[in-house]
């Protein structure tokens, strides 16, 4: 079968803080229209990995984006003036919405902000695109004028998704997006992710400590343990036939 071209690819990425390794030789690929789950315990390097992917953190190794104009370039070697252009292809959704949203401004304003930063000034366009993104994120439009400070946890995450969507990214990175949400809100949020993948053909990297959350949406799963990828496979393989001791413990501990 023909080799597929991944959308983005990390090759042997290493990151140390002082004399402690946060990531050791991490390689992974994200393919178009794929949800890649990254599972690991606290301190396994999940957040560091996302920061590197979002170009917020330096690292050794290679990071490639297979997008016209960027082929063959190692994003880890970009100057900080080049980074924003590469970051355009990506969007990040944080566990804590306050990291990404202006909590006192209307949801709609929050969602439109990336477009303003990209130079869009026509009010009608900003409003229409932000509304469309909110709708795709299953956010109740009648609350589009409310600031995130007065929204529930699940609604805030939907505003974050809309803010990501409005940028039309090739891949969305999600850092523990459902941690702290109650089970029903979590389930409907995962529904939205599944639908976005199916309807928009989006690629997602979903990072979570919760194997059940990852299982619900991921096509493939990468298991991080002490900064290393110890297991990688199809979602059902990793859950039904885990091979690394850590993954076996993780699966056995699943509720």
């Amino acid at each position, binding site marked *: *079968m023909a080799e*597929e071209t991944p959308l983005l690819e990390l090759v042997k990425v290493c990151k140390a803080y002082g004399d402690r390794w946060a990531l050791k030789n991490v390689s992974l690929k994200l*393919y178009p229209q794929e949800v890649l789950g990254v599972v690991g315990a606290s301190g396994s390097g999940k957040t560091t990995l996302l920061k590197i992917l979002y170009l917020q953190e330096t690292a050794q190794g290679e990071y490639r984006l297979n997008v016209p104009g960027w082929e063959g370039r190692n994003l880890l070697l970009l100057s900080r003036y080049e980074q924003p252009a590469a970051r355009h292809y990506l969007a990040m959704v944080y566990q804590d919405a306050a990291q990404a949203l202006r909590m006192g401004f209307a949801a709609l304003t929050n969602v439109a902000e990336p477009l303003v930063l990209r130079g869009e000034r026509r009010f009608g366009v900003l409003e229409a695109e932000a509304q469309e993104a909110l709708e795709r994120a299953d956010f109740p439009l009648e609350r589009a004028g409310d600031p995130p400070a007065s929204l529930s946890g699940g609604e805030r995450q939907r505003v974050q998704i809309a803010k990501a969507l409005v940028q039309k990214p090739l891949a969305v990175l999600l850092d523990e997006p459902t941690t702290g949400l109650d089970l029903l809100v979590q*389930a*409907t949020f*995962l*529904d939205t992710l599944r639908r976005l993948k199916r309807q928009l053909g989006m690629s997602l990297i979903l990072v979570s400590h919760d194997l059940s959350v990852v299982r*619900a949406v991921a*096509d*493939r799963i990468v298991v991080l343990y002490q900064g290393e990828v110890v297991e*990688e*496979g*199809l979602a*059902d*393989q990793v859950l*039904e*036939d885990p*091979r*690394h*001791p850590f993954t*076996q*413990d993780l699966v*056995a501990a699943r509720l």
Partner: protein
Amino acid sequence: MPQDFRKGKVLQVVNLEKRFFLHRLGREVLAFQQVSFSLQAGEFLLLEGPNGSGKSSLLRTLYRSYWPTAGQALLQTPLGTVDLARLGDREVLAIRRERIGYVSQFLDPRPRTTALELVAEPLLWQGVAENQARHRAAELLLELGLKPELLETFPTSFSGGEKQKVNLARSLIHPYPLLLLDEPTASLDTAAKLALRERLRALKQQGTAIIGVFHSLDDVSGLVDKTYSLEVRANVASRA
């Protein structure tokens, strides 16, 4: 509908083996070893053996939910022969979507997905239009005896038999060249068993090769072309 699998060999399994390494217990468990057989288009192979002889593990290994630890499983595709034991994850996904159907003993219902959506999904992967896919999904579910009022509800709340009907329909809706059936009739009522038998007969005529585990042979009477006994093979292997 591609006609490429109507004739010839579909699958050749050579010395396939699966062991589990249970790190916490420091032990190795053998599921099966030295399994070899071949399967032609339209053939029905019945797997035999007592509980724990590795029948389900073999099916899961062929579907690559389990990693084989040795051997080959050569599947015929329009692009040539591929070894299921060595394919990369992405290739396995593509092969599953196009060429292998798998019915587990139990449905693992995806939360908040309706019966109709679950069954229509494999057709959407094949590029069938959404309303046509839903129509065919409804037809098949009703044929298997699912109550019409359940089509648009969530299988998480279904009875065991109703779940199994959804599970079956999801794997039968597209005529895969290879179909793996792991005791699909255990929780079915008589009418559904008969409907399944007729459906399998039709699939066989279309060229689908089937590997199945069935405890009640009545459920597949007139369909079985050959049997493979896992227990006997394992004994032979250990004596050698």
